[in-house]
């Protein structure tokens, strides 16, 4: 069942178009993450949904009815703010019960609901405290508790973890994921952190410059990015982009000659791309470092700049001969040193190809064919 639907939403601030033709649906119990770089309009989109900003154009539908003109207080949604926005003069219990008190619920019911939510979030001991007396993580929990208590149609989260330190962020991320399951809730979550998006989402909506770049499940976005922006945004470290020229195309024998000297054979490439410039994309984890015995066929050399040992894997930052920066994830324990030359290969079966407009041409076309 569709809980919420956006139809061609537009938002203008004066002459600036913050959001342009945004359409998507949120199914019941779905966890949708809006992700994008800062200034892409993701928070504005959330505020449009919440009713805190007016919709300039388009339709917002919640549970079947158009809510464009319904004020925020009557949309039946709950929101967790980045700054928590707890009422500083009220205790935790009062903070959490505000929604129910405004709705005029009986006192027993309010107490029961607050108690249940407090137990879920391990806030039982803190109910009598004021926000000032809580740590960042606890405040975050209260903010979530305030949302839970209201039993909203949809939960909205606006970068809820960005004020927490790294360890706490990880812990709260897990808790939010658990909560989503436990409550069977529908959630829309805004973040600029693609790791958060990947780990939490059923569906990710990637926004850039006020437009949707791609919508899909985390793995879909990772494996089949529609364009260079999504390919670069999803995955850490970022996908490597190598510029080059396509020599021939069609009849399954296309090749791209990269500026760094490497040639990569490509299969099933659109014949119209022959002779054009293009960019090859390859994820750091897919680049192969060739051992010495195999270096006779070594297609390219890279100069190691920085090596990060993370224990389970090693991230190598290197420069190709033409100066292009490259990051490589190496699962092997072989230790590389800065200044060393390594031979690398780009396996064509893991590569992506972006044309001059940044559109992916190798995999996405195959996918659309498969869908047909």
């Amino acid at each position, binding site marked *: 069942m569709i809980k919420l639907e956006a139809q061609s939403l537009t938002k203008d601030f004066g002459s600036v178009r913050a959001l342009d033709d945004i359409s998507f649906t949120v199914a019941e119990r779905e966890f949708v993450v809006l992700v994008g770089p800062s200034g892409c309009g993701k928070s504005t989109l959330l505020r449009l949904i919440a*009713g805190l900003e007016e919709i300039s154009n388009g339709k917002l539908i919640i549970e079947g009815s158009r809510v464009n003109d319904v004020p925020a*207080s*009557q949309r039946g949604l709950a929101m967790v703010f980045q700054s928590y926005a707890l009422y500083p003069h009220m205790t935790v219990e009062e903070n959490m019960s*505000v929604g129910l008190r*405004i*709705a005029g619920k009986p006192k027993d019911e309010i107490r029961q609901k607050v108690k249940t939510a407090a137990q879920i979030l391990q806030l039982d001991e803190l109910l009598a405290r004021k926000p000032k007396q809580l740590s960042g993580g606890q405040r975050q929990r209260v903010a979530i508790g305030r949302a839970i208590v209201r039993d909203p149609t949809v939960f909205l989260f606006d970068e809820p973890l960005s004020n927490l330190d790294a360890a706490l962020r990880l812990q709260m991320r897990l808790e939010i994921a658990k909560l989503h399951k436990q409550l069977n809730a529908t959630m829309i979550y805004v973040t600029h952190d693609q790791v958060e998006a990947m780990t939490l989402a059923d569906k990710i909506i990637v926004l850039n410059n006020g437009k949707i770049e791609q919508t899909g499940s985390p793995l879909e976005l990772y494996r089949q990015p529609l364009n260079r922006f999504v390919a670069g945004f999803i995955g850490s470290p970022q996908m490597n982009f190598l510029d080059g020229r396509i020599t021939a195309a069609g009849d399954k024998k296309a090749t791209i000659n990269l500026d760094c000297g490497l040639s990569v054979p490509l299969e099933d490439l659109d014949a119209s791309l022959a002779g054009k410039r293009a960019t090859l994309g390859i994820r750091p984890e897919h680049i192969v470092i060739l051992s010495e015995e195999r270096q006779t066929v070594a297609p390219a050399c890279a100069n190691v700049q920085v090596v990060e040992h993370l224990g389970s894997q090693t991230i190598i930052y290197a420069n190709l001969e033409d100066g292009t920066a490259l990051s490589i994830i190496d699962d092997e324990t072989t230790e590389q040193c800065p200044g060393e030359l390594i031979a690398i290969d780009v396996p064509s079966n893991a590569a992506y190809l972006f044309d001059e407009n940044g559109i992916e041409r190798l995999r996405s076309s195959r996918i659309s064919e498969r869908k047909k």
Partner: protein
Amino acid sequence: MAQAMAHRVQRSRRRAIVNHGGLLLLFWILTAISIYPLIWLVLSSLKTSSEMFGNSWAFPEVWQWDNYVQAWNAGISRYLLSSVIVTLISTLLVVYLSAAAAYALVVLRFRGKAAIYALILGGLILPPEVALFPLFQTLTWLGIYNTYWALIIPYTAFGIPFATFLIRAYMVKIPIELSEAAAMDGAGPLWSFRNIYLPLCRPVLASAALIQSMRSWNEFIFALSFVESENVKTITIGMMSFANALRSDWSVLMAGLVISIIPVLLVFIVLQRQFIGGLTQGAVK
């Protein structure tokens, strides 16, 4: 080298002590200047009139507490009551209406906000005396001349601009997310005004209340022009007619003056902490 250093440190320390002492002395002088008339007033109110003129600086020979009883019975009680009523109502109105206006200006979204704010601030420039004659006519026309309302309404009107200015400056520092969170909790603007903004603005509301109550209490021109009956006159005008009536009895007049000061003093003592906090809050981030 080290000696020169030590010397310099010593000298700067000495200078700091001198500066500190000088400042302290200045404060003491200022305090004496502002307090002395009050002490003189209280002492005079406890002397006989002849003693007051003959022995102006000394302590009273016999403490004349009876002066206060006389003053109270001569009509001060009546004036005091009028002043309390007028001050209390106008202060409550000013604080509530200004807070509501400030809330609207800060939180609500509507067209012409800047123009409305400019209009309210324009009231700061207008001297009350300018409005004396038109107000007199309006009050007569409304049929409230010579009633408490003839004072309460103008006091409120002239108090709102500054109070709105003061409260608004405080409210803009309350994160807007709080009212947004309240909206998400299902609250309308009135709820978040009463339950979030008013409680959080308590210090500045106290400041506004104090300033307004002093203004209403001490106001003279309107009180002189808009009421004439004895039982509506406020303390400022009351003291004037009192002075005429008691021309010979100066010490009783002094006692009356002391009585008229007490309420303001009490209000200030009760609210001063919040008052100073409210005025300076946000001055330094």
